[in-house]
C-alpha cells in the first residue's frame, strides 16, 4: 500500500494555521459564552478595603461579580502553595482582586469600573532586587526576609583555592526582567457540564498540571476535570502555569454558564510570569596558565511576589555557576528575592541568558587579566569526557570541544574578512560565547492504536506548542519504528481526558520524553505484529523488518505482508493491536552531599552550545546591527531537521531581543510602564542578523533520548547577550555588564572610555 502524501510534508497543523482556519483557544468560545474579566489591583502592597459589588452587579449585562470571599480559599503553586485565586492582601500591582462575568466585554469592563476598588496602602513597595535587599526593606511576606535560602553547591575546598590562587577575577552583571512575548494572549474557556465535568479549553504547556490545580480548587476528583489544549499560540514557558483557567472556572461554577477569559496585552506585561531580573557575581581563582581552579558564584533572582517555580530556576542557576567549564572547586549560592512585583517564572532556558552572560563576560575578564586569548582560555577549561559537573555528575562526551572547534573555524574566516562597516563611525567586532544546558527530565506516556487499514493513531499527553515536536517529531519517530510514512500516523494530543499523562511541553523535553514514550508504545506494537508475522511465515523474529507499511524478512520483498492484514488477523485472534509506552528519565548520579536546596540537582542529558556574533557598532548613536551570526548546537541525532533549525533560528532572534531591546520597566509604584508591544520592544523582521548560519553537531547522540536526540528547544535563546557583548568588546574595547545592551548603555560606555 502506498501512503497518501500530504502536500505539505512534515507538519500536519501548518496548512490550517497559515490559512487562518486553525482554532486557537479564543477562536473556540461558543457565541453565547459569558465574557469574564479579571479586576486587578492598581496599588501594592495594599489591602482591599472596599469593592462596590452592588454597583458592578447593577451594570447592564453583568451576570456575576466574585471577590476573594466568593472563591475557593485553596492557594495555588507548583513548589509552594502560596498564591490565592483572588487577593485581599495585595502583594503586587496587577494582582487579581475580583472577577466579573457579563454578556459582552464592554459590559464586563463597565462592571469593573463600577466596582471602584478602594485599596488601603499597607506600606511602600520593594520594586527591585536592591530595594528588597536593603536594610529595613518592606517585607513581601510579613515576618520572613525577602532573600530566600539559596540553591547552593559547595564542592572541594574553595577558600583554600582562592587563598592559593595566582589571580582572582571578579565580575558582576545585572539583567532585566523580560517577557516571553507569546503573541497569543493567555485565555481560557470554562464550563461545567450537566454531568458535573469541569471542561477547560486553554493554551497550556502543561495541561495535566492545570488539571491538578483545578481539581484541588474545587475539591473534585482528577478524572472530573478535563483540560483541552487546541492550537497553541506560543508559550516559551509563560504558559506552564494556570493562566486564566482558575478565573474562568470560578465564574463558570457560579453562573452555570460557559465563561471565556482572555488576558489583555497590558495585563500580560503587568501580571504574568516573565523571566526574572538578576544580579550575578562570579569570582574565579585561576593559575598562571589559565586553569580555572575555583569558582564562587552569588546570584540574586527577582522572584516577585509569589514563589511559582523559582526554586527550580535558582537550582538551574547554581548548575551554571561555572558555565560549560570544568572548575574543580565550586561554591554557588543562588537566592530568590521576593519583591512587590508580579511573580517571575520559567522563560525558555530559565536563568540561562543571565548565567551565560555572567560566565562569558567573566571569562573575557579573566583572559584580559591574564593576557590570554579568550577562545583559548575557553578551550583549555571546557568540560570534557570524564570530567565532572558542578554537583559531581559525570560528563560523558567531548561535545563542548567539537562545538567550539566548529564555531572557531567560522569565526576565523569572518575575522579574516569582516563585513565592511558602512561608514567611518561604525566599528566592526566579532565575539563568541558558550554555554551548557540540558534536557529536562519528567514523565511521559503514550498509547498507540493500530487501525485495521494499517494506519496508526498515537495518543500522547504532551501538547504541541509550536515547536513541531509533537505534530512532526513524535510522528516521525513512530512512523520510522513501524516502517510507515509520517502521514500514516495521526497524533492525538493536548487533552487530559483522552490521552495518558505527560509532565508538560517544557525544558527542551517534549521530543525527548513524549518521543521516547511513543517509541516504546511503537515497540510494543512491533512486538505484537512481528510475532504474528514470524508465526505465519515460520520466520525468526530477528529477521523481521518493518518497511513500506509491511513486514518482511530482511532482504526478501516477496515475503512482505501488509501491516493492515496483520492487524486484522491479530485483532481477530487475540484482540486489537495497541501498545503503550511509559517514560521517566533515569536519575543522574551526582554527589548529593554538595547540593542543598536543589530540586534540580543535575543537568540531565547535557548539551553544549556556541554562538559567534559579528556586530557593527555605530559609535555615534551606540546602536548595534548584526551583519553575521553563527549558532552551533550539540543536538545529538536530528529527528526532524526543519523543526531543529526552526528552534535555533527562533531562539537566536528571541535571545537578540533580550540582548538588545527588551526590558520590563516598572515605576516606583511597581506598575509596569511599558505595557504595550510598542514600548516592550520585541525584534521585528528588520532587527535580525543579515545572515544567520546554523550548524548542528550530531556526533554525540543522546544515550537516553529517542533515536539519540537531545533537547534543543531552549539553549538557542541563551547565548546572544553574551555573544553580542563579546563582539562589542572586540569592536570598541568597551566592557558591558548590564542587559539589555541598549544603545544608551553602549554610548555611555563609549563616552566613559574617551579621555
Amino acid at each position, binding site marked *: 500500500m502506498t501512503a497518501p502524501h500530504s502536500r505539505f510534508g512534515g507538519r500536519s497543523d501548518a496548512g490550517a494555521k497559515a490559512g487562518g482556519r486553525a482554532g486557537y483557544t479564543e477562536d473556540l468560545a461558543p457565541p453565547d459564552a459569558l465574557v469574564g474579566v479579571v479586576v486587578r489591583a492598581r496599588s501594592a502592597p495594599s489591602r482591599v478595603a472596599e469593592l462596590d459589588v452592588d454597583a458592578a452587579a447593577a451594570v447592564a449585562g453583568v451576570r456575576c461579580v466574585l471577590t476573594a470571599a466568593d472563591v475557593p480559599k485553596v492557594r495555588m503553586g507548583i513548589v509552594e502553595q502560596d498564591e490565592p485565586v483572588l487577593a485581599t492582601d495585595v502583594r503586587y500591582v496587577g494582582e487579581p482582586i475580583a472577577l466579573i462575568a457579563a454578556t459582552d466585554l464592554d459590559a464586563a469592563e463597565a462592571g469593573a469600573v463600577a466596582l471602584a476598588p478602594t485599596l488601603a496602602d499597607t506600606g511602600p513597595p520593594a520594586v527591585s532586587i536592591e530595594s528588597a535587599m536593603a536594610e529595613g526593606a518592606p517585607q513581601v511576606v510579613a515576618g520572613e526576609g525577602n532573600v530566600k535560602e539559596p540553591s547552593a553547591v559547595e564542592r572541594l575546598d574553595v577558600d583554600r583555592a582562592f587563598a592559593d590562587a595566582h589571580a582572582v577575577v571578579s565580575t558582576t552583571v545585572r539583567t532585566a526582567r523580560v517577557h516571553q512575548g507569546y503573541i497569543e494572549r493567555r485565555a481560557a474557556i470554562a464550563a461545567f457540564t450537566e454531568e458535573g465535568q469541569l471542561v477547560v479549553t486553554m493554551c497550556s504547556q502543561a495541561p495535566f498540571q492545570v488539571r491538578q490545580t483545578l481539581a484541588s480548587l474545587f475539591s473534585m476528583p482528577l478524572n472530573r476535570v478535563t483540560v483541552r489544549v487546541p492550537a497553541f499560540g506560543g508559550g516559551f514557558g509563560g504558559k506552564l502555569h494556570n493562566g486564566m483557567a482558575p478565573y474562568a472556572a470560578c465564574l463558570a461554577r457560579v453562573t452555570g454558564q460557559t465563561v471565556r477569559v482572555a488576558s489583555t496585552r497590558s495585563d500580560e506585561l503587568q501580571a504574568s510570569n516573565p523571566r526574572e531580573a538578576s544580579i550575578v557575581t562570579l569570582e574565579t581563582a585561576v593559575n598562571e596558565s589559565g586553569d580555572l581552579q575555583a569558582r564562587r558564584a552569588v546570584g540574586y533572582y527577582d522572584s516577585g511576589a509569589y514563589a511559582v517555580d523559582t526554586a527550580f530556576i535558582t537550582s538551574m542557576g547554581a548548575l551554571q555557576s561555572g558555565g560549560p567549564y570544568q572548575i574543580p572547586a565550586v561554591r554557588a549560592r543562588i537566592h530568590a528575592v521576593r519583591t512587590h512585583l508580579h511573580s517571575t517564572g520559567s522563560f525558555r532556558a530559565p536563568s540561562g541568558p543571565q548565567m551565560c552572560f555572567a560566565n562569558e563576560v567573566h571569562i573575557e575578564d579573566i583572559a584580559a587579566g591574564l593576557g590570554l586569548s579568550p577562545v583559548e582560555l575557553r578551550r583549555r577549561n571546557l568540560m570534557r569526557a570524564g570530567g565532572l559537573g558542578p554537583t559531581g555528575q559525570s560528563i560523558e562526551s567531548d561535545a563542548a570541544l567539537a562545538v567550539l572547534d566548529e564555531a572557531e573555524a567560522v569565526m576565523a574566516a569572518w575575522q579574516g574578512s569582516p563585513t565592511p562597516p558602512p561608514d567611518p563611525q561604525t566599528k566592526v567586532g566579532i565575539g563568541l560565547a558558550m554555554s551548557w544546558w540540558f534536557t529536562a527530565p519528567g514523565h511521559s506516556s503514550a498509547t498507540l492504536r493500530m487501525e485495521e487499514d494499517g494506519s496508526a493513531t498515537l495518543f500522547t499527553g504532551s501538547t504541541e506548542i509550536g515547536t513541531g515536536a509533537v505534530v512532526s517529531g513524535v510522528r516521525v519517530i513512530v512512523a520510522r519504528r513501524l516502517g510507515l510514512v509520517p502521514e500514516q500516523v495521526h497524533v492525538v494530543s493536548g487533552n487530559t481526558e483522552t490521552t495518558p499523562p505527560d509532565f508538560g511541553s517544557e525544558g527542551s523535553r517534549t521530543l525527548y520524553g513524549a518521543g521516547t514514550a511513543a517509541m516504546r508504545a511503537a515497540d510494543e506494537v512491533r512486538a505484537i505484529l512481528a510475532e504474528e508475522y514470524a508465526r505465519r511465515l515460520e520466520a525468526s523474529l530477528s529477521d523481521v523488518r518493518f518497511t513500506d507499511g509491511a513486514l518482511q524478512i530482511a532482504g526478501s520483498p516477496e515475503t512482505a505482508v501488509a501491516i493492515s492484514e496483520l492487524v486484522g488477523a491479530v485483532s481477530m485472534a487475540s484482540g486489537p493491536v495497541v501498545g503503550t509506552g511509559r517514560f521517566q528519565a533515569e536519575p543522574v548520579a551526582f554527589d548529593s552531599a554538595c547540593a542543598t536546596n536543589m530540586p534540580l540537582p543535575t543537568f540531565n542529558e547535557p548539551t553544549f552550545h556556541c554562538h559567534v556574533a559579528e556586530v557593527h557598532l555605530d559609535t555615534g548613536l551606540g546602536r548595534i546591527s548584526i551583519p553575521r551570526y553563527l549558532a552551533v548546537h550539540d543536538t545529538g541525532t536530528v529527528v526532524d531537521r526543519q523543526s531543529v533549525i526552526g528552534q535555533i533560528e527562533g*531562539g537566536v532572534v528571541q535571545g537578540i531581543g533580550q540582548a538588545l531591546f527588551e526590558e520590563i520597566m516598572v515605576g516606583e509604584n511597581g506598575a509596569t510602564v511599558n505595557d504595550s508591544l510598542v514600548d516592550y520592544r520585541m525584534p521585528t523582521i528588520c532587527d535580525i542578523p543579515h545572515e544567520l548560519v546554523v550548524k548542528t553537531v550530531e556526533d554525540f547522540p543522546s544515550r537516553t533520548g529517542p533515536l539519540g536526540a537531545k533537547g534543543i528547544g531552549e539553549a538557542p535563546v541563551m547565548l546572544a547577550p553574551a555573544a553580542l557583548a563579546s563582539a562589542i568588546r572586540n569592536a570598541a574595547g568597551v566592557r558591558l555588564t548590564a542587559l539589555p545592551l541598549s544603545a544608551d548603555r553602549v554610548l555611555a560606555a563609549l563616552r566613559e572610555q574617551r579621555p
Partner: protein
Amino acid sequence: MTSSPAGSSILTLEVNAEPRRVTVAATTLLVDALRDGLGLTGVKHGCGTGDCGSCTAMVDGQAVTTCLVYAMECDDMAIVTPEHVAESVIGRILVEEFVTAGAVQCGICIPGFIVQAAAVLDELGPAPAPAEIKDALAGNICRCTGYYPIIAAVIAAAARLAAEGGAS
C-alpha cells in the same frame, strides 16, 4: 447602516465577497466584529494597539490592523479576511510556501503575515530582495521563527507567482 436602540447598529459589510450583516456598537472594533459577530477568527488578537499585525485583514483593498479600526468605519466597504486570502491564487501560493519553508510554528501570527504579504506581492515583483520584504512586513511580529523562513517563503512565492503567470 441602520441604528437600533441601545446604541448598537446593524452594518452591512461585504465580507469575503459576500454581503454580511453584523450588529455592532459605535466602538466595536473590526477585529471583534469579524471574530465574534461573523465567526471569522483568522484575524487574531495579539496586542490591541496595532503593534503586532496579527489581526491584519484587507479593508477596501488595503491591509490594515483591524484592532485599530471601528467596524462602523467599514460600513459599505469590502473586507477580506485571512481565510479568504488563503483561498486566492496568491494566498494559496503563500500558504504553501510558508508551510514548505517551515515558517509555521505556533502559527498565530502567520495569517496576518500572509494577508500583508499578499497585499504587497505584486509590488515586490518576481525576485524581491530580503530588504524589500523586510520593509513590507515590518509591521508583523513573529516570536517563534526568527523570520528567516518567512523571508524565504515570500521569495519563493514571488518567484512562483511570476512563473505561474500572476494572479487571476
